[in-house]
């Protein structure tokens, strides 16, 4: 029975009889999409609704279905750690995305100069991205540890007053996370932008040269606008990395020193699983969701809703 239903859609999709009305060809497509749609609806949307609902309860270890209003949100916004987390994710988000874009663009331009051994450089720059955040975090933790890594190395070379203790410094620790993040993400940005650069018509460069345009001006005013779709892709990919930032922090600083490098995702995980405080954890998750939606909504509106409205 199951094999019979499975065979229909490919046959119908492969050879759509010309001239037929559309609804008939749409039915198999809809059938084929149904499982995915169901999964999205039940698993993603369902879990979101469930999470939001739980944030209005007093659930601790197991979910409860009482109603405590906004009590958890009141707690959340009086919680030092959550406020620090929110501030940190802002710092990280802005610096990480900007840093990856700038560094990634420069690397892409560098490789695009027909350098010798391009394949080697490309692999080299993209390599960090192949590593998990946990490996990245531990490697940078060792490298930046004042007693083991860079600081000790430079001091052993004779510069005894050299100090680079950002990792153990409350004010600076979050920037070490940014550095590790950029190291990890810049290669991917480079790959995306390089693909874009290769698509730029070589005649443009010739034309610019005839007009006597300096190279930096050419890249900034001609190439960059042409790369807009690539930049948008890179930003979206990097932004998802910002929201889910968790493993890098856990591997590198565990949120420390103190609470200096705590991030919202870690707040949620700790409260859900370690602290038996499901309600507070889901409240924090809900705030994250609202933050993401409020960032995405204007963009989705500008990109999809408005143009369609104009066409119609």
């Amino acid at each position: 029975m199951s094999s019979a239903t499975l065979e229909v859609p490919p046959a119908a999709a492969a050879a759509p009889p010309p001239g037929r009305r559309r609804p008939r060809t749409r039915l198999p497509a809809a059938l084929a999409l149904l499982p995915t749609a169901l999964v999205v609806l039940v698993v993603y949307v369902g879990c979101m609704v469930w999470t939001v609902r739980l944030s209005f309860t007093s659930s601790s270890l197991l979910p409860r279905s009482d109603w405590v209003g906004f009590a958890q949100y009141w707690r959340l916004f009086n919680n030092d750690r959550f406020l620090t987390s929110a501030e940190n994710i802002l710092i990280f988000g802005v610096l990480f995305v900007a840093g990856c874009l700038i560094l990634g663009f420069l690397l892409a331009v560098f490789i695009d100069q027909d350098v010798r051994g391009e394949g080697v450089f490309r692999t080299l720059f993209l390599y960090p991205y192949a590593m998990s955040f946990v490996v990245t975090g531990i490697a940078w933790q060792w490298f930046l540890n004042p007693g083991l890594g860079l600081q000790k190395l430079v001091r052993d070379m004779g510069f005894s007053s050299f100090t680079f203790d950002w990792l153990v410094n409350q004010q600076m620790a979050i920037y070490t996370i940014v550095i590790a993040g950029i190291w990890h993400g810049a290669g991917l940005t480079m790959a995306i932008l390089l693909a874009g650069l290769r698509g730029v018509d070589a005649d443009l460069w010739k034309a610019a040269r005839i007009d006597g345009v300096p190279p930096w001006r050419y890249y900034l005013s001609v190439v960059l606008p042409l790369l807009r779709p690539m930049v948008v892709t890179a930003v979206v990919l990097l932004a998802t990395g910002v929201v889910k930032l968790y493993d890098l922090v856990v591997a590198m600083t565990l949120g420390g020193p103190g609470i200096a490098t705590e991030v919202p995702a870690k707040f949620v995980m700790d409260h859900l699983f370690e602290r038996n405080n499901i309600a507070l954890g889901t409240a924090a998750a809900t705030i994250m969701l609202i933050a993401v939606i409020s960032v995405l909504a204007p963009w989705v509106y500008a990109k999809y809703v408005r143009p369609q409205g104009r066409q119609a």
Partner: protein
Amino acid sequence: MRLTTRVSLYALALALMSGSGAQAQQKAEVLHWWTSAGESAAVKVFADQFTKAGGTWVDNAIAGGANARAAAINRMVGGNPPTMSQFNTGKQFDELVSNDLVRDVEALARTGKWRDVMPKSIVEATVRNGKFYAVPVNIHGQNWLFYNTKLLADAGVEPPKTFPELIAAGDKLKAKGVIPLALGGQPTWEHNLFRAVLVGHGGADLFRKIYGGRDQATAKSAKFKEVADVFGKLRALVDPASPGRNWNDAANLVITNKAAMHFNGDWAKGEFVAAGQSPGKEYGCTLVGEGGGKLVIGGDVFVFPATKDKAQLAVQDKLVEVLLDPTTQLEFNKKKGSIPVRLDVDVASMDVCAQKSAAVLKDPANQVEAMELLSPPSFSGAMQDAVTQYWNNPGMSVDAFVEKVVAAMRDAA
């Protein structure tokens, strides 16, 4: 057609397998988080003894306590629980009891006279509504001071007995160029150090009122502020590279003669053992505090998910018997670094530190329940946030810290 035949064959095979399994062999799936070398050697003692008793041990080790507990809880709620599952002694399984997800083992406790042989605080931490809902298997002391005997002797200091002595010793050790106090600079271990100071300098009552009573007036008392001040002074004894350090790396500083002292639970002994050192010789262990020091005790328990399956109930009964058998207890705890939960087991064959633990615990006045026994994880976590902020901000005043502690108490209520 072919598919249906195959499916029914699978179903038949599955039915046969599970049917024969329940009858012929006593299969126990055990979920725990003992994954390090010493820990897995310890849990193997249980497994071997259970196999000897005629059962089949199915080991389900999940790294990380929180992960393992989450997996166990999910499976219990989902109706497919393991035969037994590890928790820490204390409040972690409170809600499982109130939701009837775990089975009481009161009948076995009565025949085994558990209340007579186990320390009162451990019994109280396992009993709910007058019934045992878990089987404690060990006692871990959480506030031991491990010290490097050679470094202390070189600096001419005795192992400190009180915290003011310890701070004074710190200056002499610093003059010798060693790190006085090795600390794993992660919130968990900063919090553990704080509790060692709280119970040592503040006393057992203060400890219970803060973690058990969550009494805001006590948090504002002069004594608590004094404890916070002493704790703050310990910052000067710790090296600047401490933040983020793992506890075993901190213990290793003592092993390699780089640091003189280190507060930790008795599980840290495993690191010294692995380095070929023995207690009383290269390193010593002592309790710091007024009046000889109190031992903060916690440990591990196994809970038995509720089931109606008679065969599973029998397996669970057999497991309990194995866990608390005196020989098993002795062998298990030697490997684990803890001491037997039964105080009637002869510990003469264990190491000096374990013998010290057992001797201290003979007097019930020396037993102080660990934080896990006194407070729900939500409050412990909130306290941890407060302590780690205070520890890492030398500029933060004691009053600001007290303010954070009071806020944590208010939120947990």
